[in-house]
């Protein structure tokens, strides 16, 4: 028998395993228990609890934090499907608070205002699995190294514009493709390039104190890990990606999915499922939109049925990328 209980990756297996149960499904943003119930009845595979949907955060501005624990408790009590919740990038304490509430997965999300300008949470410290967004391949690798149990595109939340999610899918795909023919030495070089981002803080601080030529060595760069340890671990992630020819965990699309056809496009591009934020509850008839997006995700190549479910749906208004603040640029 393969004894998994005593293996070090047991926790990792449970976290990534949880994410696998959402494959082929739609995870919907909700702000109240009432919305959560609508999402569950319409076929959501999980709900994402947050204070305001991205379109409103964009419109109203201000600091976006994790949702009120009272709201989260109400949502937890109202549905039987998993409940996820957004946490600010690098906000260790919000993450522990959400874990203590019994939330099933956290989303360390650029949609909320970042708490730490340098680093993401060390997700290995938590028992609750965490999903993170990524624009590029190196970004996805860093999040996996930090212990993310699931990856999603960042896209551009609250815009109803799918173009950025497409950009991020293509960027990550290309990274995976490039790894295919690399030797181990070349792969290690890539690992070093990806790790460099972590030393930005150390460069800033020690360079200012000691001068750029006498900078401190890169020990304790990220959560007590030195530069070499980070490189080695990132190298291991890269080898796993190279062997599997895909990210070694569940990979969803997010940020700008506004119509059933958008969801179908994401599935056609090889995504494991979709997050829909403002697209549902900013549309004219949320329940109808939710059902239609679920249908299009399940049967993403049944174009006749997608045409049927899309008929007469009035989706949210869309935004062009120029002249808006790009939430995706938050986090490194």
């Amino acid at each position, binding site marked *: *028998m*393969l*004894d*998994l*209980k005593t293996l070090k990756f*047991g926790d990792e*297996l*449970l976290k990534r*395993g*949880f994410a*696998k*149960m*959402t*494959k*082929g*499904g739609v995870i919907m943003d909700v702000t109240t228990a009432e919305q959560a119930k609508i999402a*569950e009845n319409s*076929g*959501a*595979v*999980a709900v994402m609890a947050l204070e305001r949907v991205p379109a409103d955060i964009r419109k109203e501005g201000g600091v976006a934090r994790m949702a009120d624990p009272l709201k989260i408790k109400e949502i*937890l009590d109202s549905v*039987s*499907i*998993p409940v996820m919740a957004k946490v600010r990038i690098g906000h260790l304490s919000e993450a522990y608070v959400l*874990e203590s509430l*019994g*939330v*099933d*997965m956290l989303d360390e999300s650029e949609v909320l205002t970042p708490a730490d300008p340098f680093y993401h949470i060390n997700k290995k410290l938590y*028992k*609750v*699995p965490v999903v993170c967004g990524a624009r590029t391949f190196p970004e996805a690798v860093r999040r996996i190294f930090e212990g993310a149990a699931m990856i999603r595109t960042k896209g551009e939340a609250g815009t109803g514009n799918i173009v950025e999610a497409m950009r991020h899918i293509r960027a990550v795909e290309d990274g995976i493709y490039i790894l295919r023919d690399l030797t181990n030495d070349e792969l290690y070089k890539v690992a070093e390039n990806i790790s460099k981002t972590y030393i930005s803080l150390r460069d800033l601080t020690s360079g200012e104190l000691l001068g750029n030529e006498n900078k401190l060595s890169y020990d304790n760069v990220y959560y007590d890990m030195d530069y070499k340890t980070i490189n080695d671990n990132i190298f291991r992630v890269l080898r796993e990606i190279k062997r599997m020819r895909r990210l070694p965990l569940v990979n969803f699309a997010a940020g700008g999915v506004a119509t059933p056809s958008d969801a179908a496009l994401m599935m056609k591009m090889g995504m494991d499922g979709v997050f829909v934020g403002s697209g549902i509850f900013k549309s004219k008839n949320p329940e109808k939109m939710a059902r239609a997006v*679920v249908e299009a995700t*399940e049967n993403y190549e049944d174009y006749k049925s997608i045409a049927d479910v899309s008929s007469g749906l009035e989706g949210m208004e869309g935004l062009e990328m120029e002249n808006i603040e790009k939430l995706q640029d938050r986090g490194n």
Partner: protein
Amino acid sequence: MNIGILNIQGDVSEHYYFIKKLGKKYGVSPLLVKNNNDLNNVSGLIIPGGESTVIYNILVKNNMYDNIINLNKNGLYVMGTCAGAIILSEDTSDIRVKGMGLIDIKIKRNAYGRQINSFIENIYIKHIGDFSAVFIRAPEIEEYKNSELLSEYNNKPVFVRNKNVLALTFHPELTGDPSIHEYFIKNILENEAGNNRAKQ
């Protein structure tokens, strides 16, 4: 001979690769089952883990729900893991998911708590042996009547069998251990061999 994997939602591909890996040894192939047409071409069906509410609703909508019940009565072997076991059960105590009643178990959804209460436990399975079982937001089999008990944990059944129906509350597809899938295939093959002898 085809073993179907219900391809609606959940960890479908993990089951697919297990059956594919065992294919050569037993002469079986995996087939992703999306509709009633596909169901006509399989000798066994695996209903994977995922969200039981989502899988249930789509089964009903695609008219596959009653069809699976009928096919099972006519000999189709079915294995349900986690959410799959909920779908196969007699009583789910939850109006959101109606069990098919293919196995005489009463089952409770998310019985162990939320995701932070998910766990891995080594169990002993009759006919199979020791197994590292991964329980993720698992349901609990509260009662069973005439089914055969294959394994229990904490005095509660986690794996039961009723002739051509297997129901287990954990995730054999998340481990590297194919012995449960192997057991499922062997059951189907032995049954087919028996049918052939009867015909002669």
